[in-house]
């Protein structure tokens, strides 16, 4: 590309390095620094109060120590997180911090010399003093690429990003031709992280070659899956990484205008993206003649209204055009016929997040991570019955067992693992026998699941698989746009069947009808929402059919979860008559003694809250939860 007036990043870089040095440099030369995780996960856990307590106490103690607001480190289970960089010590991260602990840390560790091991989550590097993150079992599997900066830099300071290698990829991309950029992406064998796993390089090439001008690039940050928050974390914690990659994508396909379609429910992400755009413009990383090259490009934010279907690319484009967010038939694909009928590249936040790494460190380095067909890392939001909930980034090909048991720390309370729901509402439930499945695009598809957006919910013996299927189908049924017959009416029928089964009203033929409808909705629907909505049902029917049958044939919920199929019952032989511990716990006065002073639950009054269950002393263990319900004669 022709250079108009050679501007390079080096000027900005020196400035950024200085800025970074001024904040974190002191750690090695006498002045401490503190970082606080201030992403949505941290804020929800009370990080605002912790931040305030730190600032107040530092002022009171008259200590010179900057406090930097950083993003999400992925250890969301232990928020609020505070990391102290004290000269002479390793950087130590403290978890579950509250204002009291925060003040204690300042007095004991910053003023005194006691690193307070009782509050330590882990040190950022190995040392002899306190345990470090490297000692965690998860350290063996975690590979931080997309999340590298998250929680380490202040997302509101472009200098922090640049001082950590930011915008070097853009600089490099502008020195090679757009075709060479695309070749690099193809050689990295990058695949789309938005769900389908389509080869990204091929899509870019298709879009570059497509006739028609102008061309557009769109970053899909609609992230509508319940329980998924990977894109949010990246946008909040490292917005420039997405922006840099989007600019590179614009250069590669020959676009002049980019969009970031972000859901309005992510106010912090929106605010940080706005700021990032402004900073990038100031430094000529956006706008006319970027870094002195002939390439001009700008980016606009578009706030989505939060409908799940607007994440589907054709619906997203309709929504950007000011129309209702309703999908249309493909082909033509957006790469050829997209926004305003022009060639449009649309990529997920995480897909783009990989781009800058590929360009900066080369396709080979990226392709060395993961498997042959699924390169790079996978980011999951680990949730449900697992010890360490939060964000996890592992190489593709890591097994489910490693993610759940090594990274996630296994199932809490000594319960048994039952299944893992992967891929959100379009995904599937996989049983224990699938635990050694490598997590990559193709293995998951073969098992009837989907990489999806990256939600991963762990289920244990207390989770009813019929209810889980019903829960996810209820979500998609509500989110269906209603355009096409199978999705609009088929999911409605399926949900009615599942409602009936979980209420004990299922008829013997219901399971077969459910399976037939699921197959038809999958094959007959217009867009990905309808095509994947049956997956939770199909996968539970495939792996947990016995649970469906128990509900329908025996009126029994094996997991004791479906409220209509359980009751609480006091075993007369076990009730210690002189004890009345349970009686008072019942808020609706359903428990009373009979003539022999044995306690009996009046099932007509009982609201199945379960409060009485733990009230019965363990040595008696007279109260049980049972399915199917039985009544004391």
């Amino acid at each position: 590309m022709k250079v108009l007036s050679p501007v390079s990043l080096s000027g900005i870089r020196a400035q950024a390095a200085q800025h970074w040095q001024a904040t974190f440099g002191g750690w090695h030369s006498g002045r401490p620094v503190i970082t606080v995780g201030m992403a949505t996960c941290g804020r929800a856990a009370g990080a605002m109060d912790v931040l305030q307590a730190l600032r107040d106490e530092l002022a009171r103690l008259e200590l010179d120590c900057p406090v930097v607001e950083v993003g999400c480190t992925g250890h969301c289970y232990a928020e609020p997180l505070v990391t102290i960089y004290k000269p002479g010590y390793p950087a130590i991260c403290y978890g579950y911090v509250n204002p009291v602990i925060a003040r204690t840390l300042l007095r004991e560790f910053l003023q005194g010399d006691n690193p307070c091991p009782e509050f330590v989550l882990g040190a950022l590097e190995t040392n002899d003093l306190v345990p470090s993150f490297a000692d965690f079992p998860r350290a063996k599997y975690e590979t931080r690429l997309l999340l590298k900066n998250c929680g380490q830099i202040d997302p509101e300071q472009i200098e922090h990003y640049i001082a950590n290698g930011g915008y070097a990829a853009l600089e490099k991309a502008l020195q090679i031709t757009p075709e060479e950029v695309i070749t690099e992406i193809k050689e990295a064998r990058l695949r789309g992280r938005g769900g389908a796993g389509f080869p990204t390089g091929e899509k870019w090439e298709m879009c570059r070659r497509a006739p028609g001008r102008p061309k557009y690039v769109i970053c899909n940050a609609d992230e509508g899956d319940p329980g998924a928050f990977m894109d949010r974390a990246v946008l909040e914690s490292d917005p420039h990484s997405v922006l840099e990659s989007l600019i590179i994508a614009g250069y590669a396909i020959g676009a002049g205008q980019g969009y970031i379609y972000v859901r309005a429910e992510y106010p912090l992400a929106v605010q940080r993206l706005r700021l990032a755009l402004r900073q990038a413009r100031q430094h000529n990383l956006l706008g006319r003649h970027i870094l002195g090259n002939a390439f001009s490009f700008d980016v606009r934010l578009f706030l989505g209204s939060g409908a799940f279907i607007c994440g589907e690319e054709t619906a997203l484009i309709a929504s950007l055009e000011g129309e209702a967010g309703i999908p249309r038939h493909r082909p033509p694909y957006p790469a050829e016929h997209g926004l305003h009928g022009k060639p449009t590249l649309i990529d997920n936040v995480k897909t783009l997040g990989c781009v800058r790494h590929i360009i900066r460190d080369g396709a080979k380095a990226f392709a060395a991570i993961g498997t042959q067909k699924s390169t790079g890392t996978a980011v999951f939001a680990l949730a449900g019955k697992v010890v360490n909930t939060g964000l996890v980034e592992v190489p593709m090909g890591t097994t489910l067992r490693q993610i759940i048991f090594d990274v996630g720390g296994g199932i809490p309370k000594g319960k048994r693992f039952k299944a893992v729901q992967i891929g959100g509402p379009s995904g599937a439930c996989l049983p224990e026998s699938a635990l050694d499945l490598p997590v990559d695009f193709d293995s998951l598809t073969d098992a009837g699941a989907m990489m999806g957006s990256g939600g991963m919910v762990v289920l244990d013996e207390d989770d009813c698989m019929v209810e889980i299927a019903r829960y996810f189908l209820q979500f998609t049924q509500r989110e269906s746009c209603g355009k096409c017959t199978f999705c609009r009416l088929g999911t409605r029928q399926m949900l009615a069947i599942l409602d009936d089964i979980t209420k004990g009203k299922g008829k013997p033929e219901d399971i077969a009808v459910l399976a037939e409808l699921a197959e038809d909705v999958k094959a007959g629907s217009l867009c990905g929402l309808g095509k994947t909505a049956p997956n939770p049902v199909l996968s539970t029917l495939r792996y947990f059919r016995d649970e469906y049958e128990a509900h329908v044939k025996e009126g029994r919920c094996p997991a004791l979860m479906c409220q209509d199929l359980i009751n609480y019952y006091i075993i007369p032989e076990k009730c210690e008559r002189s004890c009345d511990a349970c009686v008072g716990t019942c808020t609706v006065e359903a428990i009373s003694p009979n003539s022999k002073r044995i306690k009996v639950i009046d099932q007509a009054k009982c609201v199945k809250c379960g409060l009485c269950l733990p009230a019965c002393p363990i040595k008696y263990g007279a109260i049980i939860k049972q399915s199917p319900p039985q009544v004391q004669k």
Partner: protein
Amino acid sequence: MKTVTLSIDGKKVFAHTGEKVLWAALDNGIYIPNLCAMRENSEEPMTACRLCFVEIEGYAQPVTACTEPVREGLEVSTRGERALRLARSGLELLLASHPIECARCPVNRACELQRMAAHLGIKLKTRRLRKFVHEFPIDSSSPLFVYDPNKCVLCGRCVFICQKLPGTPAIGFAHRGFDRRVTTCGDEPIGNRCGDCTECVSACPSGALVFKSRSPAADGS
């Protein structure tokens, strides 16, 4: 214009390049169930009804005939078991959400739903599925026609025509999912909004939009 030769159910058929399989079939006397397809927008079909499935030699899955461009040598079957299963299932879903009161319906025996049910060999009253019929009020505010939203199958033909005509369109889609319906802006009575060209009534394949001349009962009540 260039033509191609393809085979549909073993019959050799000529069609224009760029044309869709559905129209090639219909123009040659081969019926494929369909509700939402219109010649006027065959370039960008609505693809909402999902009834026009056919099987094509070499394809892994049945495809919608209204979106599939004809190609030289294409071998299309409208009677493949998988395509028929989808068409039957789709129609059954529509019928399960449609008030089946044909004897009293003004379009009885001129109804596309009845025609397709006969073609596909399924009953109008489904036993397999549950009945979910909306109970929206019937709109007889127009002097010329009656709109019964409960009978609408959301094919979108009326909306397409109305929006294509000059002037401000009277009707469009509103709401999502199962509640999606054809209505006016602000759910006003259709008579307040519409110029009574009645193009939509002619386009409607079900008993949702009918001329008052055909439906004396709905007028008076």
